[in-house]
């Protein structure tokens, strides 16, 4: 009776999953086996293992790694300080707020800021350094990406640190640890799950970024995401685009699996 009742409530959820998750994945896989004329082929997969695409994969990984690493480097101390402030929920909200604004709007804003006549260059002039090419560099690409992803990194880390029992820190001090030792041996290990979740939600989308690569990096950075977009919208080679998408999905599943949270009881 109870079980049956619960099954009824599951139906909308199941329908959602089937229509919007499972069938698109099946479609992607199906398209990945078609050539330009719509015939069955394995050549897309062969193409993927050519140096051009492998290099692109490596590139994607490298940039996603950089974006994740810088996000983490900034987010961890920020989250830590946030938990120590008086109105922490309010501060958290303020930090999360920008993530509700459309990504394109933010990208265009940076076009203005980093442009030749933008605010950044104006500041460089003031300090006597002179105008620099900021837009369309690795720096601007990573800077803007980090800016966009950082709220997603802060949120899970903030939650993990906030959940930490403060008497564990007292205990560590009491047993002779310096502040750094306490961080290394108690605080960090107990918030690692938050760090993992944060890395997941940053690394995976960063792997398939494409709008920013064109707007901010001026197509100097070609990632797998860019390649998918190009194949679908420009070269119309849906088969190859789908194949790259298949690999992206496989990589995502692998990452989720590797960074999967082993639940630990926090006393």
């Amino acid at each position, binding site marked *: 009776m109870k079980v049956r009742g619960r099954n009824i409530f599951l139906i909308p959820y199941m329908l959602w999953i089937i229509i919007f998750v499972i069938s698109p994945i099946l479609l992607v896989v199906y398209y990945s086996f078609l050539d330009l004329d719509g015939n069955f082929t394995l050549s897309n997969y062969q193409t993927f293992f050519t140096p051009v695409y492998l290099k692109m994969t490596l590139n994607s990984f490298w940039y996603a790694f950089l974006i994740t690493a810088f996000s983490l480097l900034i987010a961890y101390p920020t989250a830590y300080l946030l938990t120590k402030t008086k109105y922490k929920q309010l501060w958290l909200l303020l930090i999360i707020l920008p993530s509700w604004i459309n990504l394109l709007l933010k990208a265009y804003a940076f076009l203005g800021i980093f442009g030749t006549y933008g605010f950044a260059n104006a500041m460089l002039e003031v300090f006597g350094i002179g105008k620099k090419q900021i837009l369309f560099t690795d720096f601007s690409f990573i800077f803007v990406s980090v800016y966009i992803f950082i709220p997603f990194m802060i949120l899970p880390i903030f939650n993990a640190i906030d959940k930490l029992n403060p008497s564990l820190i007292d205990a560590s001090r*009491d047993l*002779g640890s*310096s502040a750094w030792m306490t961080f290394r041996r108690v605080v960090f290990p107990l918030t690692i799950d938050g760090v993992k979740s944060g890395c997941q939600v940053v690394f995976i989308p960063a792997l398939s970024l494409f709008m920013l690569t064109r707007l901010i990096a001026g197509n100097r950075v070609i990632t797998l995401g860019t390649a998918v977009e190009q194949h679908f919208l420009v070269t119309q080679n849906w088969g190859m685009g789908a194949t790259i998408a298949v690999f992206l999905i496989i990589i995502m599943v692998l990452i989720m699996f590797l960074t999967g949270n082993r639940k630990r*009881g926090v*006393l």
Partner: protein
Amino acid sequence: MSNQAIIRFEKVTKQYDEDPPVLNDVSFEMERGRFYTLLGPSGCGKTTILRLIAGLIEPTSGKIYIDGKLVNDVPANKRQVNTVFQDYALFPHLNVFENVAFGLRIKKLKKEEIKQKVREALRFVNLEGYENREIKEMSGGQRQRVAIARAIVNEPEVLLLDEPLSALDLKLRTEMQYELRELQQRLGITFVFVTHDQEEALAMSDEIFVLNNGVIQQRGTPTDIYDEPINRFVANFIGESNILKGRMIQDYLVEFAGKQFTCVDGGFNPNETVEIVIRPEDLEITPPEKGKIQVKVDSQLFRGVHYEICCYDQQGTEWIIHTTKKVNVGDDIGLYFEPEAIHVMRIGETEEEFDARLEAYHEQGVANEG
């Protein structure tokens, strides 16, 4: 100097923001190798004293000495003191062995030495063979032992215990009371034990500090405090009491409940208004004509070991009696008590004044006899 106080507080005050002080001008000394208990109701500042000793917080004013050295500026990790926290604060990401080894690893001892010390500490608390257990697999009582092992493995001079037994059930708690007392005697170090349970304090301590509102109300051995409470708060907090208004006619003669009684107290002004404490177990039930006071039984509760009987005398004053005799509700009974059972308290007397009066009065007594 080994008989020097191990812990000394000199006029220590702790205040948070604009709140009234949590501790107010507290001074005390603790000797080496004794079992001290801080006893008081929740919120009276017990944990605050422990945290001040451990160095986890700093006093607003006053001086704290450990082993004769001023430690106000010494951080927690540099003090020869370890704590068993109220919620145990065991590290959930480490197993039992690593929890106990935590302090030794910080000190960078050799692997073999760590292994040996941890094993020894676990044997001390009867947890041999539990090294590889996760903390969440341990019961409440076992966790508490791990917390103790984790503290004593560092061989501190002082062990601070913050209500370590409050989370345990009654039977285990009584068992652990014995074990802790024994542990203290085996280790020979100073224990500062915090509790809000007066029976626990009376059972375990060499010396008890009774606290209320951030002030030490009274300090002394369990029997001192039980037999000679200095004020209404202590009398009420340590066991049940009948507290009555009275008048000290002269030395050894006091008036209460409309009658005069001989007693053993002195050193008061003639006709001074005082408070009288009579413990419920010092009252003996007699036939009405044989009692010093006549009362009517109002209610009776069975408390397991004894009956708790509530009576009223002619003036309407309530009397609580603990006895193994059964009576009937509505009976008229008499109450008998020895002169020694009457404890006379001066109203609003501080601990120092109490001590001074007792001393002066004893000297006088000796002089009179001689």
